[in-house]
């Protein structure tokens, strides 16, 4: 086997780069593998994040930010929209810059970054423990030794499966999405829009997230088990025609969003799963950037502690799962429960909930409400009618 590492991180998305950064800062020997020839491509994301979510990075570079969200519009099938001013709602990022910057930050702190380098399997020692990784680069396979593997390999994660974790997604536990980067008008550059309805996007929603300069991420996600064989792309094309007078397509992308489930396993032996690889996505909004950052950070910290106190058994690494779920477990479980209700909602339910919110938000200062408070208020108003303010959930 070739070089020896303290930790190999598979995948240079937000989760992987965060983990590699923390380990490198603590002077551990880290290898960060990215199978694509460039970090940040191809990108499958609508790029919205809350201020709090972004602050997990610690040092925020203004170049990551494309626009600030000041207003949120919720549009039910009737078109009777609800528009709220919400100055602290969040930001729309430029993830190509963001992802690349985070990877480079890990590298300048001492991590070794290899692009065009795909992990293709794990290596076991004679006691059955994982002791290395097989990697393919430029058509050639090589082997690297490591004490810990951090799986940050996104929705298509194989690392967990190689280690025997069954995390294949069911068709009702994943969103199937299509998105355009559009130059479009009319567009309110400060307002993000969510369009709801069983015909618009069965089990999902359509969104318009402005990115400045007349551009916007315009996408649509459905729950494939409810789609009756209609594709997200067809529904999005229909939506775009209806929503915009003029538009031109700058880019297109397909996407899959895993929904968190109680079964999600974060640690097995010396393998830690983070971000989308661990299915740490809010099941309702589909937001995963903040959870990817946080899980990567905690995984890096716990791995680092483990490496310093070399005498620890791999059981010590379970601390990562405990610490992450202590902070995020309740929230993730709550959203996963909300998703189940959301998938059952009919068009009249969306209308009723938006009507309720119009009244409710009149009396409350919306900027002070947390997503969970709002969701609970909806549930209390009528437990049958749950519409989650998906936008508040990042």
């Amino acid at each position, binding site marked *: 086997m070739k070089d020896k590492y303290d930790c190999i991180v598979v995948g240079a998305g937000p989760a992987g780069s965060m983990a590699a950064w923390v380990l490198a800062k603590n002077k551990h020997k880290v290898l960060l593998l990215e199978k694509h020839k460039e970090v940040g491509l191809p990108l499958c994301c609508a790029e919205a994040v809350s201020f709090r979510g972004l602050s997990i990075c610690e040092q925020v570079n203004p170049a990551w930010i494309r626009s600030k969200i000041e207003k949120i519009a919720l549009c039910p099938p009737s078109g009777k929209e609800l528009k709220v001013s919400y100055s602290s709602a969040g930001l729309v990022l430029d993830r190509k810059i963001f992802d690349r910057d985070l990877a480079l930050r890990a590298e300048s702190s001492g991590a070794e970054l290899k692009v065009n380098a795909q992990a293709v399997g794990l290596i076991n020692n004679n006691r059955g423990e994982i002791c290395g990784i097989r990697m393919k680069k430029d058509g050639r396979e090589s082997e690297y030794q490591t004490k810990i593997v951090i799986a940050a390999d996104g929705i298509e994660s194989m690392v967990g499966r190689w280690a025997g974790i069954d995390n294949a997604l069911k068709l009702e536990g994943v969103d199937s999405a299509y998105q355009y980067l559009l130059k479009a008008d009319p567009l309110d550059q400060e307002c993000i829009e969510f369009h709801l309805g069983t015909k618009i996007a069965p089990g999902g929603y359509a969104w318009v997230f402005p990115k400045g300069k007349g551009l916007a991420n315009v996408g649509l996600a459905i729950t494939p088990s409810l789609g009756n064989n209609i594709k997200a792309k067809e529904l999005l094309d229909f939506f775009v025609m209806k929503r915009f007078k003029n538009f031109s397509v700058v880019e297109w*992308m397909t*996407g899959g969003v895993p929904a968190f489930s109680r079964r999600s396993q974060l640690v097995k032996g010396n393998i830690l799963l983070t971000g989308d690889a661990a299915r740490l996505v809010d099941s309702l909004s589909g937001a995963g950037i903040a959870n990817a950052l946080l899980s990567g950070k905690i995984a890096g910290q716990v791995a680092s502690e483990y490496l310093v106190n070399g005498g620890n058994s791999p059981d010590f690494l379970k601390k990562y799962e405990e610490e992450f779920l202590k902070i995020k477990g309740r929230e993730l479980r709550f959203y996963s429960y909300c998703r189940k209700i959301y998938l059952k909602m009919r068009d009249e339910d969306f209308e009723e909930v938006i009507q309720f919110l119009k009244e409710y938000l009149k009396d409350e200062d919306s900027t002070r409400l947390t997503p969970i408070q709002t969701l609970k208020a909806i549930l209390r108003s009528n437990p049958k009618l749950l519409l989650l303010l998906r936008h508040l959930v990042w």
Partner: protein
Amino acid sequence: MKKLSLKMDLCGECGGCVAVCAFESLDLESQGLRIKEELCTLCNDCVVFCPSGALEITDKE
């Protein structure tokens, strides 16, 4: 005989099909999606998932 086929020009390499396949018969490599035909049970889940209709089950020539 049937097989799973990919229309490459429609594929955005999102990896969602890989995640829904319970048989590990799909792999998203740096050059694109690879179908391991010998593992595929033609269960159709990836076809239903694919957001752009890039996957379909067709007759083998």
